[in-house]
């Protein structure tokens, strides 16, 4: 049965205050077991390190581009750790934390940004689709995939749910709103996970959306929730519930994870042109990692030994990512013809042969010059 009326949600679901105090919520049960919380902490620190290493690699010319997730770790790790293995995720381009949780090797993630492969990873091996950069498109793909799940009858307690990630800016796009509507009328098992990081490049949120984003779901006839996106507990608990709702055939949910893009839009952006350091400072105080660390300390669930060990592991990961990235081989020119069609294509084969001759002619010329 679908829940077409929208519940009165409080403005922001939060289970962990910025000071690291755990405040249970009646609607979103969550048991912060020590081992799990420590694992979450480790995830957060490691993806932040991976991200920082990638930014550095781009600066050194090793990657073409990188879209940093800095500040959004909790939204991504929390929501992704709520996924079951059979669930499918459709990301935009910043979801390195989700990729991490889905088991995508950092090297494969970097290979794509280095431009040595079109694919990078097998989406079905990880149930994590490839990155989509045209804003909003993947919300429709997720909706279609979810309707396929529905058609296959793969719903129920152990069924499959679908999640799609997009930004606040993407909610302006027709595709996204069409996906909301289409998913709603079909009761598709999809969770729309919007990371409202307050900015779409230089456009602040209030220039793009008059109503709070999560409230939009009401107009489409499905529930919308705003969650503290820097609170990994809340992101996990809220997403788990929404996924379960979808899995059991109750239709879509819109989750607005209220967070902040601490870094530049991408490595080609300079955010000092359009936002203030005061704003960044304010969000720094809500840092997702600092808050979980405060919780672990406050509850006596981790000591310096643990934190040092995670730090050391992060250092090692950084080094490993760097070495692996540099070792990635360049593709060969004729590879451009390899992934155009799944089926043979005679005209393209002809062009490939012609191009091979053309390349060979240069080798000859070089030989002659030598």
């Amino acid at each position, binding site marked *: 049965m679908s829940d077409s009326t929208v519940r009165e949600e409080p403005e922001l679901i939060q289970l962990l205050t910025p000071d690291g105090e755990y405040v249970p919520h009646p609607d979103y049960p969550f048991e912060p077991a020590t081992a799990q919380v420590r694992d979450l902490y480790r995830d957060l620190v490691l993806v932040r390190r991976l991200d920082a290493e990638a930014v550095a690699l781009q600066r050194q010319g090793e990657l*073409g*581009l990188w879209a940093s997730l800095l500040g959004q770790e909790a939204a991504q790790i929390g929501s992704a750790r709520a996924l079951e293995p059979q669930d499918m995720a459709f990301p935009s381009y910043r979801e390195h934390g989700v990729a991490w949780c889905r088991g995508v090797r950092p090297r494969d993630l970097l290979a*794509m940004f*280095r*431009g*040595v*492969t*079109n694919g990078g990873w097998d989406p079905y091996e990880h149930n994590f689709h490839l990155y989509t*950069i*045209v*804003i*909003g498109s993947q919300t429709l793909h997720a909706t279609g995939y979810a309707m396929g799940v529905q058609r296959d009858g793969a719903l129920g307690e152990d069924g499959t749910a679908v999640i799609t990630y997009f930004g606040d*800016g*993407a909610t*302006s*796009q*027709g*595709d996204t709103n069409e996906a909301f509507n289409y998913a709603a009328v079909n009761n598709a098992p999809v969770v729309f996970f919007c990371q409202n990081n307050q900015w*779409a*490049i*230089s*456009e602040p949120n209030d*220039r*793009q*959306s008059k109503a709070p984003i999560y409230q939009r779901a009401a107009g489409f006839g499905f529930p919308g929730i705003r969650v503290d996106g820097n609170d990994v507990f809340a992101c996990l608990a809220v997403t788990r519930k929404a996924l379960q709702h979808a899995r059991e055939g109750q239709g879509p949910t819109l989750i607005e994870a209220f967070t902040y893009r601490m870094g530049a839009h991408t490595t080609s952006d300079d955010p000092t*042109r*359009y936002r203030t350091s005061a704003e960044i400072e304010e969000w720094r105080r809500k840092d997702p990692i600092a808050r979980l660390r405060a919780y672990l300390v406050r509850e006596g669930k981790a000591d310096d030994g643990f934190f040092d060990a995670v730090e050391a592991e992060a250092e090692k990961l950084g080094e490993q990512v760097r070495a692996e990235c540099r070792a990635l081989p*360049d*593709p060969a*020119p*004729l*590879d*451009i*013809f390899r992934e*155009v069609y799944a089926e043979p294509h005679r*005209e*393209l084969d002809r*062009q490939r042969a012609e*191009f091979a001759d*053309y390349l060979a*002619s240069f080798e000859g010329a070089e030989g002659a010059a030598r």
Partner: protein
Amino acid sequence: MPVITYRQALRDTLRAEMHRDENVFLMGEEIGVFEGSYKITEGLLKEFGERRVRDTPIAEEGFVGAAVGAAMLGLRPVVEIMTINFSLLALDQIVNHAAKIYGMFGGQNSVPMVIRTPGGGGQQLGATHSQNVELYYAFVPGLKVVAPSTPADAAALLRAAIRDDDPVLFLENLGLYNTKGEVPDEEVVGEIGRAAVVREGTDITLVGYSRMAMIATQVADRLAEEGISVEVVDLRSLRPLDRETIVNSVKKTGCAVVAEDDWLTYGIGAEIAASIQEGAFDYLDAPVRRVAMAEVPLPYAKPLENAALPSAESVTTVIYETLRAVGRRVG
């Protein structure tokens, strides 16, 4: 004459046209506070304020449609679409509405809007961000499509496009923004639909537009050193297409190569080649050849991207082949 960049020529012209006509205003993603993804609108928000320089949400179909409506009221919107790739999200508003309202409303309502947008690969932006799909618009009656390759033409044609009562797609190119050239101080209004012979020659006609017109000129300069006289025709306008200038050049040289940054099959070059055989068949000494992009989605990897794009080298090779076909000893 002052020497300025293509970018500066666009910016100066936008500014001058906004001063000239209160009805001219700008809209697009990131054009205000951020001053444009490629900094064409730098300083304009400060100078003209939000009433004239409007940042839009990420909704290409939405803001292009709104511009169509504003143009129907008599305003002169100049819309920036971040790159031509994203114009695909606005295809319905451009093709079904901007291009057809004048005809379908019985000539009572024209749509005097300009869509400025850069095409171009070679910047490592990946397959969905590196396309040259101006052909989609050049195909449509009711639209005009201009594609200047020099700062002077950029200024003259942008001025003409803004003053034109029909919808104009104004094609820029990421690879041209930093190129420099002389731009006259006085106000020149270009003529939409006129190609230019930018370099006279007698051995072969080389046709290009936008970035490929620039490459064509470079190729011609280099081949001149080998004693090959290349006549370069810069199309400047894809619709209306100036067939006369192309045909007259081929009548003189007897052979032609078309260099295009789009895909070969059904590309702009196919139209040019057809126009040449219709207009100058008896003058042709060799088949018209085309140099285009490999027919693949443009790869993101630098070496692969370079491999897929047409270049001065690939154009030169085909010129040699064509000249050999007419019996010259070259290369």
